[in-house]
């Protein structure tokens, strides 16, 4: 398999919204690459990542993830959900459970259903979880409850939970925007590092051009639900980047106002 993500002419609108959240988006991400989605709030980054994670239905166009098409009418199977890991801006951890328990939650999609409900990990599940903790530098926190951790530590736990899924694609939605700049660079170093070591593809979103430039091989600029550029880091154009955050109305806005 050589492509991790391949989407073609993809459009999606949230129910009741007057404008599409994604409009005729096409994108190809080769396996093993690290790609940043760059854009302002509302550009469609979160929607695109959620769609690739199989959490949105009723979109139009074609999309395949890890070599197999995803279905706009049905949620993906447990196996396929486990194959792509998701890292949330707000960590999305079970606060009252321990770090190890949270990381083992990443194994649930890999366990038979009954074992998953009982939460009885096999020795190999534990081994995978321990290795993930180790890679994220938090082995010493394994028995701590998540609600006693700092933001940076929490995001390490979330990355470890994702690694416990043994994903081949990691989707990360603004993984560092809740963290201070030093912590943000640390977490992205970790994320791209562990993904690279495992040969997993990373697609992360950010609204900070400097972080995108530092940690991605390729940058995809989004604005108003469309992809406006898709370039290797070396070719990133300052003007085009600034354009993503430009205030004012786009041509389509003007058109909408003219008719309403």
């Amino acid at each position, binding site marked *: 398999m050589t492509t991790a993500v391949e989407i073609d002419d993809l459009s999606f609108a949230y129910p009741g919204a007057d404008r599409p959240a994604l409009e005729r988006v096409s994108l190809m991400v080769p396996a093993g690459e690290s790609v940043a989605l760059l854009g302002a709030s509302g550009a469609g980054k979160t929607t695109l990542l959620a769609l690739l*994670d*199989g*959490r949105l239905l009723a979109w139009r166009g074609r999309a395949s993830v890890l070599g197999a098409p995803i279905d706009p009418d049905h949620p993906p199977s*447990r*196996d*396929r*959900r*486990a194959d792509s*890991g*998701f890292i*949330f801006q*707000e*960590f*999305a*951890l*079970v*606060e*009252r*459970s321990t770090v190890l*328990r949270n990381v083992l*939650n*990443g194994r*649930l*999609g*890999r366990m038979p*259903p009954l074992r*998953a*409900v*009982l*939460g009885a990990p096999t020795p190999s599940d534990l081994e995978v979880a321990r290795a993930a903790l180790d890679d994220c530098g938090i082995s010493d926190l394994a028995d701590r409850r998540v609600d006693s951790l700092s933001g940076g530590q929490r995001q390490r736990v*979330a990355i470890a*939970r*994702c690694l416990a*899924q043994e994903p081949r694609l990691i989707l990360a939605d603004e993984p560092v925007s809740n963290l201070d700049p030093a912590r943000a660079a640390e977490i992205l170093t970790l994320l791209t590092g562990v993904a690279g070591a495992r040969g997993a593809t990373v697609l992360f979103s950010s609204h900070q051009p400097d972080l995108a430039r530092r940690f991605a091989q390729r940058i995809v600029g989004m604005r108003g639900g469309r992809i406006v550029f898709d370039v290797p880091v070396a070719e990133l154009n300052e003007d085009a980047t600034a354009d993503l955050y430009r205030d004012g109305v786009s041509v389509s806005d003007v058109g909408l106002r003219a008719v309403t």
Partner: protein
Amino acid sequence: MRSRRFGGIAAGTLVAGAVLWSFATSDLEVSRMMSAGPRVAEFLGRMFPPDPTVMDEIVKGSAETLRIAILGSLGAVILSVPLGILASETMVSPVLYRPVRTLLAFIRAVPLILVAMLMVGAVGLGPLPGIIAIAFHATGMLAKFYAEAIDGVARRPVAALESAGAGPLARLRHAIWPQMAPVVARDTIFRFELNLRESLILGIVGAGGIGFYIQTYVRSFQYDKAASVTLAVIVMVVAIEAINVALRRRFA
């Protein structure tokens, strides 16, 4: 402005009318009201010193009250788990949770003592009607609390486990339950405390427990014995409160 003043006058007239009506039709004599204070004081005086010889009855009655509260609470928990899930906005559709919530509100509106009297009529004297009454009455509140506990958990961790490939039951067990467990423990202990307090008086209508002795001694003018039983009840309530506080710290 005018209509507000008119509303004030109307409300004042209504309240005054209600008070006058209550006085006029309750056969109250001023002399009897004046002497009520000293009479109550004298009555309390007859309760002292409390008679300690009723220890056996206290132990027997307290044990029965405790058993009624424990089994009544158990029954309420068993009824509240499914009803709580069915009354939850995040687990079932409005078609289901709306009628279930209405049913729970109706259950809460029926006074415990009325349920107990009906149960005594239905199944006879003793602890059984008390247990049934407590289980029924407590479910109205406990199932509502459980539903609120389910609906109160953070949704993001649940979504994260779904994204990782966990099924609905695995998500309930590993993302929802850890978040709601302390709330369920706190609410259940709170309801048990209320059940224990409320079951103390069930004996008065024949539904078993220590209340039976208070009623018996007051009716037979053995106020010193009634005082001992009352003191025992107070000690029990304080003890329940202390245990509750300790448990709350543990689960916080």
